[in-house]
C-alpha cells in the first residue's frame, strides 16, 4: 500500500472526507448530550456542545483578529531589519 496513493485517493474524494467529518462532528455532539457529567469546574462543562462552539468561535476570532492586527501593525517586509 503506497502512502501517496492513499493521500491522492482522499484528495480525489474530498466529499467523502467532508461527509465523514460532518458525521464525526454530529456524533461527538450527540455523545456530549448523553454523557454523564460530574466534577465540573466551569459553567461551560455543564452545557452540551459548549466546547464545539468554543472551538469554532475561538478559531475564527483568532484568525480574524491576528490577521487584522498583522495587516495593520505587525507585518513588515522581509528585509525590514537589514
Amino acid at each position, binding site marked *: 500500500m503506497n502512502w501517496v496513493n492513499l*493521500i491522492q485517493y482522499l484528495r480525489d474524494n474530498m466529499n467523502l472526507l467532508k461527509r465523514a467529518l460532518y458525521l464525526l462532528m454530529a456524533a461527538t455532539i450527540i455523545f456530549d448530550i448523553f454523557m454523564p457529567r460530574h466534577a465540573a469546574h466551569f459553567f461551560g462543562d455543564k452545557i452540551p456542545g459548549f466546547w464545539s462552539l468554543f472551538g469554532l468561535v475561538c478559531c475564527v476570532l483568532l484568525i480574524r483578529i491576528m490577521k487584522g492586527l498583522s495587516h495593520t501593525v505587525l507585518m513588515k517586509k522581509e528585509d525590514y531589519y537589514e
Partner: protein
Amino acid sequence: MNNFIHPALFFILGAFLIPALRGRIRQIYLLIVPALAFYSVLSMNTGVYGEINYLGFNIIMGRVDSLSLIFAHVFTLMAFLGVIYGLHVTEAEQHIASFFYVGGSLGVIFAGDYLTVFIFWEVMAFASTFLIWFRREPASLKAGFRYLLMHIFGGILLLAGIFLHYKNTGSLAFELIPKAGAGFAEYLILSGFALNAAVFPLHAWLPDAYPEATVTGAVFMCAFTTKTAVYVLARGFQGFEVLAIMGTAMTIYGVCYATIENDMRRILSYHIISQVGYMVAGVGIGTALAVNGACAHAYAHILYKALLFMGAGSVLMMTGTSKLNELGGLYKYMPLTLIFYVVGGISISGFPLFSGFVSKSMIVAGAGEAHHPVLMVLLLLASVGTFLSVGLKLPYFAWFGKDCGLKPKEPPANMLWAMGLTAFLCFFIGVYPKALYDLLPFKEAAAEYHPYSAPHLSETVQLLLFTGLGFFLLLKRLQPEAKINLDFDWFYRKLIAGFMRFDQKYIQSFDSGWGELYRKAGLRAMMSIAGFFAWFDRWGIDGVVDNAAYGTIWIGDKARKVQTGNLQNYLAFAILIIFVIVGINWFL
C-alpha cells in the same frame, strides 16, 4: 548503593574524542555516548552525590530525586534521538557543540547549588550559540550574536540574584523558595530563569534564533534550553502566582503569532513559547497535579516538538526553503515526512491516543481543580490555536495547497529513522500513559489521574473538530504571506539600530566636532602659548645666562688687553690706582 555516574560526563568528556574518529566508527561512537548516558540515568538511585567543599562553598554536582530524574530521563533519550537525526552530518564541530549543550543542561538538572547551576547554565548558552552559527549564513551569524547577548543578559540577572541571595541567606543551596520569603534577590533569579523559559516579554530571542539554526541543531535547541528552565522553575518556584499568569499569557501569545507567521520553523518556535507556557503555568499553580502536569508535559513536549522540528528541518534541507508561501504539494514527494510530521502535529494538539492528550490535560485539570477557571479556559483557547497552526495550517500549506513545482526527495534514512522512532514514542506515551506517569515527582497525584475520562474525551474531540471546521471556513484568510511580523526583538534590533544612528549622527558628530574644535582652537592656543614660552626661554632665561657669559668674556677680553707685559705701564697703572685710593680716602 553508590552507582552514580554523572551523565553530563559522558557528553562533555565524550565530545573531545569526536574529531579523532571518522566515518562509520564515529557514527557508532556518537550513538553509544547518549545510550550510555541514558543507561546511567536508568540505573541511578536517588540521593546526593558529588558533594565537594570548595573555598567554603558547598558544591553539589549530583542531586538525584524524582524531579531531576524525569528530566534527565527525557534529556538523554532526546540526545539519542537527536544524534540519530544528525548522524549524516560530517562536521565534527557540530556534534561537539550539541554534546556540550546536552552536557550543560544535564549539569543544571543534577546541580544542588546555585554556583553549579550558573556554570552549566553558561555552558549551555555558549554551546547552543554555535549550533546557530554553524549554519554559516549571514543571518545566522547575526541571530547567533543576538541570542548570545540575550542569554548573557539572562545569566547576569541570575548571577546578580545568586550573589544577593547568598548575601541574605549565607547559603548557595538550590532549594524550593518559600513564596513568603522571596525578595528582590529571588525575583532576580526568577527572571534569569524566566528568560531561558522564554517568558513574555523576555521571549523574543527564541523565534529570532531557532529558525536560523542548523537543521540538526534546531532539533537539539528546541528540546533543552526551555525545558531546563522549566526544571529550575519547578525546583525553586512552585506556586508563584506570577508564573501561573505569565505562563497562561505565553500560551496565548505564542499561538497568536504562530497564526500569522510564514516561516515553518518560526511557527514552531512560537509554539515552543506557547507549550512552555503550559509548563510555566503548571509550576505557577503549584499543586501536586499541576506540577506533575508540568513535568509530564515537558517530557511529552520534548519528543513531539523535536519531531516537528525534524519534519520542518527535513523540508528545509530537501527544498532549501522553510517559507510556507514558497512550498506546497510536497505530499507526492515526501509522504513519510508528512506522516511523521502529522503525528507530531496531533500530539502537540492533544489528540486522544497521542502524548499531548495525556500531559497537557493534567495542567488544564490542575488549573480547574485549583479553582482558576479563567486560566483553564485560556489554556483551552491556546490549544485551539495550537491545532490551527501546527496541526492544520503548516502541514496544509507545506504538503498540500497549491503545487509549488519543487520535487524534493525524502530526507536521508537516518533522519527518517529518527522521526519514526520519535513518532512511535509520541504514540506510545499516548496509549500507555502509565510509562510516563510512573516517572512523575508526585506519585500519588499521578496514580489518581486518568486522562481517558468521558468528559475529557468529549471536550477535546469537540474542540479539535470544530477548530478544523473554522480552519477550512477561513482557509483563504490564512494564505501565507512573504512577510515578517514585529515582535519584542524590535526593541533591541530597531531601537538599538536607531540609537546607533543617533549616536553616529549626534553623539559622534559632537565628538568629532569637539575634536575639530580642539584641533583648530585648542591646539593653536597651545602652540602660541608654547611659542611664547619658547621665546621667553630663548630671550629671557637664555638671555640672562648667555649675557652673563658674554659679559665675562668681554671683561676677560678687556682685562687681557690690560696685561700688555710692559713694566712701565704696570707701574704707571699701579701708581694711578694708589692715587685714586689716596684721593678717595682723602676726600671721604
